[in-house]
């Protein structure tokens, strides 16, 4: 039986083995059935874990870095890497959550920029920090709401909708600000994003706090399950009573809100509102999510993975500079990593199909004998 499983149907032996490891015969006449709640072994989980793979790459790259540049021993280098990674991380968390829910937002960079400029403009004109940060977040949420409504209720593809809003918002921001930086900003405003608690950059703490919330929602609440469900099979989710349009719209709103919040935090960190900020963030946020194991087809992914993906991007870009690699080649490396991550996603899905097929063959054979 093993031979047959292994060869002609094109099912590799290891999938057949995986299917066999817990022999099953759905609808068998066996009266006594074991409780099928068996836990998945940790090494099985680890094998499919994108987070672990990304973490390993970060560690490996850092180890190489130690041998190539003394800067890797410098605290400031790591403070810088983690702070940069934190901005991407905050945006990528919700971009990733949206992608897990089957959506896509290309306008996060513009929402980020809207956050930068609206927050700094208000602060510059004497409004207090609470208003500045609140208004920036509100504008981001508004942008997300527009995206969400057009995609879910106007039924226009997310790719096109958010590409459109990306251009439109950038144009509005540049027109309103005249393309000029805003600054200098009050000390109280810049204190919010700059500085550290002990040796830990405060931005990292913000990011960890926000990511933790996203993680709890995705992994421990029914809302998280619903997000994965609408990303995996929207019709099925709808048939079980999930309001798919509303939930997806909420994800767009969160995505816009936190993109703008990350923007105003970066303005606070830098001490000025720069209208060129956020340009590369659109693709970086998506890249971080995919590198961190978020599936392009939705439903699969973890917040931990997304955060590690953001950190990896930051480690790579900063690390390659420190190693004196030709700057032109940095994007090449990021591109290769991205494609490899997408390839891993595809392999994960293929494996599921192969295991299913192996199982089917086994059941057919069980029925025949």
């Amino acid at each position: 039986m093993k031979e047959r499983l292994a060869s002609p149907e094109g099912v590799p032996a290891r999938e057949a083995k995986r299917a066999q490891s817990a022999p099953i015969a759905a609808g068998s006449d066996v009266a006594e059935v074991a409780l099928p709640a068996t836990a998945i072994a940790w090494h099985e989980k680890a094998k499919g874990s994108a987070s672990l793979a990304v973490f390993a790459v970060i560690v490996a790259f850092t180890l190489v870095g130690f041998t190539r540049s003394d800067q890797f021993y410098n605290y400031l280098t790591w403070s810088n890497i983690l702070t940069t990674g934190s901005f991407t991380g905050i945006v990528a968390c919700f971009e990733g959550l949206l992608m897990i829910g089957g959506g896509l937002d290309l306008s996060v960079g513009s929402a980020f920029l809207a956050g930068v400029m609206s927050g700094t403009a208000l602060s510059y004109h004497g409004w207090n920090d609470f208003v500045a940060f609140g208004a920036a977040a509100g504008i981001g949420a508004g942008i997300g709401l527009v995206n969400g409504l057009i995609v879910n209720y106007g039924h226009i593809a997310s790719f096109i909708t958010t590409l459109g809003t990306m251009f439109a918002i950038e144009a509005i921001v540049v027109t309103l600000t005249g393309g000029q930086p805003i600054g200098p900003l009050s000390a109280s405003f810049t204190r919010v994003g700059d500085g550290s608690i002990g040796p830990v950059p405060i931005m990292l703490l913000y990011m960890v706090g926000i990511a933790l919330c996203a993680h709890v929602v995705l992994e421990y609440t029914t809302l998280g399950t619903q997000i994965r469900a609408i990303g995996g099979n929207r019709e099925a989710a709808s048939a079980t009573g999930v309001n798919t349009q509303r939930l997806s719209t909420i994800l767009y709103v969160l995505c816009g809100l936190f993109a703008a919040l990350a923007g105003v935090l970066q303005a606070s960190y830098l001490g000025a509102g720069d209208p060129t900020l956020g340009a590369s963030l659109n693709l970086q946020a998506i890249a971080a999510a995919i590198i961190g194991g978020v599936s392009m087809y939705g439903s699969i992914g973890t917040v931990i993975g997304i955060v590690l993906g953001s950190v990896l991007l930051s480690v790579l870009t900063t690390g390659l500079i420190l190693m004196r690699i030709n700057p032109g080649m940095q994007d090449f490396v990021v591109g290769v990593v991205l494609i490899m991550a997408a390839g891993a996603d595809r392999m994960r899905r293929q494996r599921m199909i192969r295991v299913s097929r192996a199982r089917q063959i086994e059941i057919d054979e069980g029925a025949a004998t």
Partner: protein
Amino acid sequence: MDGFGTDCHATTVGFTVLTINPRGDDGTVGSGPSAPVLELRHVAKSFGHVVALRAVEMRVYSGEILALVGDNGAGKSTIVKILAGVYQPDDGEIRVRGTVVRRMNPRMAGLSGISTVFQDLGLVETLDVATNMYLGQPLTRFGIFAKRAAMYRGAAITLRDLQVRVPSVRIPVAELSGGQRQSVAVARAILVDHPIVLMDEPTAALGVRETRQVGKIIDNLKDMGKAVVIVSHDLEFVLEHADRVQAMRLGSVRGVRRRRDFNREEIVGLITGLVAGDDPSQARGDHLEVRS
């Protein structure tokens, strides 16, 4: 019959009222024991120019299995999707325990006590078995946190009671065989313990043994007093398990037969159109004018 069987109901399907029902069933809905728990009246549905259902009537009683049979495009699955709240009917009404449900949607269907096993199974492949079974009816703590351990346990127990074997309730549905997926979909519908269960092609992906198992599950549901509607191409399966068979053709009901009147050739004839329907006007929908 187990005291709940159809034989104790002196009623038959509504559209036959004026023409062939000599016992004078007046088609009214009361609250007595013989009142249908689920009823469709004059339900019509079109998709663009394609008429999927024309003035369809259907009644289901507690403790019986009603089978909808028909060729492709007969409208069987459309009926199930309307009852499950996936499609809105263009015309007609849905009654659950005599009460008209004005706007049926998936949530409303659940609240009305209807659970559904869809033909395309309605499972999220990337989610694990237990999560799929509790999708739409999660066990929660404080209303928002998922009680995963309890759901794993509950799913495992439900599957065990149904004698369904899956390697683990924690693996994604995508890794299951066709039969296992079917079993999970059926188990999900049973888990809620709703009084009305709709099953669209419950044996489509199954082998002989698995089909027998699903048949057993369906019989069990009946014994529990549930109203079961099955849509199936498998006439042998239907004749073995159903208490009544409703034959559909091109979006219309062509006839309803009780178990004691089952005649394979006649039912095939009704499905294919070789045997005239009980009410020829049904096909044109003009019986609507005849009915009061």
